[in-house]
């Protein structure tokens, strides 16, 4: 913290502040406005206090979406973090093979999200998709358009396929940053492979893993496009997550008040969880 104090630095930050104020603050204020008013017409609005909040928070459909969302984000984190770290441990630290592996590994990250949905729509179909046909050949009755559990699992597998590379890339960056001396010391001590991982690599990875957890949590909590294309939120409500629910409320039914109230709650929930993850993961050490 030996940076010089310089209030003129605000001039440099000003463009960003104006930009973000325009694209985030103004809209957010509109949302707050809507959440406490009933809009009857262009110039007719009534203050309703916390009515919309109460209505939204007691909506059973929202509770369903929220539990599905929490379960989904939880499973996504539990599946993608260990898998991503495991894959990263397998990538050689240097050489032509490593950069080639990185390119292939990163490919799913660069596919537009709706195309990800389209790919899995084709890949997982029971009649024309490789994945669906294979599973059915194994004697398991699999049809993601009719069976809620199958649909939910398909969305999950799609997410693991799509986002594990991000965790792997981040973890790989962290592994590369570990100085050789650490490994040599461990070698002299005769440490086992697992001990090296447990006492050298894992502690050193904490920084990048924090980023990975935060990014994966935030993004899986906001997931919209992929399930929208793959299942449209169905069958029933089995893959309707929070963003789907909100979009339906706001654009589908045009329920401005409840949609706005829900938006605020949604945003606060993400902030809260991100803050908890962040403080827990950076506290020790």
């Amino acid at each position, binding site marked *: 913290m030996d*940076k*010089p104090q*310089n*209030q003129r*630095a605000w001039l*440099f*930050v000003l*463009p*960003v502040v104006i*930009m*973000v104020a*325009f*694209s*985030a603050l*103004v*809209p*957010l204020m*509109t*949302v707050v406005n809507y959440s406490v008013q009933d809009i009857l017409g262009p110039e007719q609005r009534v203050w309703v206090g916390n009515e919309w909040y109460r209505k939204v928070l007691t909506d059973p459909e929202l509770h369903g979406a929220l539990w599905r969302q929490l379960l989904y984000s939880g499973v996504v984190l539990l599946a993608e973090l260990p898998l991503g770290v*495991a894959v990263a441990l*397998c*990538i*050689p630290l240097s050489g032509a093979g490593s*950069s080639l*592996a*990185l*390119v*292939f590994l*990163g*490919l799913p990250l*660069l*596919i*537009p999200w*709706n*195309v990800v949905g*389209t*790919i899995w729509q084709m*890949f997982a179909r029971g009649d*024309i998709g*490789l994945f669906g046909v294979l599973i059915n050949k194994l004697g398991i009755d699999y049809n993601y358009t009719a069976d809620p559990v199958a649909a939910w699992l398909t969305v999950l597998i799609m997410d693991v*396929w799509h986002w*594990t590379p991000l965790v792997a*890339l*981040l973890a790989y*960056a962290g592994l590369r940053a570990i100085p050789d001396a650490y490994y040599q010391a461990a070698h002299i001590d005769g440490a086992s492979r697992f001990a090296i991982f447990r006492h050298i690599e894992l502690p050193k990875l904490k*920084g990048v893993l*924090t*980023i990975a957890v935060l990014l994966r949590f*935030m993004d899986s909590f906001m997931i919209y*496009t992929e399930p*929208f*294309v793959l299942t449209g939120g169905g069958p029933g409500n089995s893959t309707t997550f929070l963003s789907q629910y*909100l*979009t339906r409320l706001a*654009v589908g039914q045009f329920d401005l008040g409840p*949609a706005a109230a829900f*938006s605020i709650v*949604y945003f606060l929930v*993400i*902030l809260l969880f991100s803050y908890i993850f962040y403080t827990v993961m950076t506290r020790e050490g």
Partner: protein
Amino acid sequence: MSMLVLGLYIACSLVPIYWLVCMSLKTNQEILGGFSLLPAHFDLTNYVTILTDPDWNQGYINSITYVAINTVISLAVALPAAYAFSRYRFLGDKHLFFWLLTNRMSPPAVFLLPFFQLYSSIGLFDTPWAVALSHTLFTVPLAVWILEGFISGIPREIDETAYLDGYSFPRFFVRIFIPLIRSGLGVTAFFCFMFSWVELLLARTLTSVEAKPIAATMTRTVSAAGMDWGVLAAAGVITIVPGAIVIGFVRNYIAKGFALGRV
């Protein structure tokens, strides 16, 4: 052993993409007629359809237009800010930085309606500008975050030496500083490009006809004209190409790009 695991993982992760490519080379009858691992003959009709039908190729042009605008805007506003965050302390700097990051955390669905009204009221609805500006919601915080990490990696002595040598600030910035963080700018541009290119919800809501992005063209075709699987697959393959080209360029810097910085 570890190479085997890695190879296996990469092979598995490429299978869905292989399937997409495979579908794009089949005709619709072949896709629906029976299951086969390889296309019977390499049929490029689907690609020809996309490249010649203005409904389709205009979508690509629209997408690239707003992604380019977004990347330029994001870099232009984020660079000075990242420099300030990295080099100076000033009133409220930490709070400001965290506030910027919270925008990365806000679900686009929350901003759907206000954006729609905002851009309609200033007459930008259905232009690439509306989509580009709305995407700055998440690209600008990300750009500041990544650039700050890169700039902090450059010793401050370089700035000071330049001033001692009589460089004015703007000259130092353009002549010395920007060349130094070229790779950082590249990675940042890559991430802005990527997140703007893959987003659908805002892009679809803020456009209708004139500026319709390719992603929206794809979803609307699905719901309207039944399933034209072959063309849809070909359209998907083409959307992967720009990303694949860009990742080839920046692969060595990507992982470095995220530094938790000061948060």
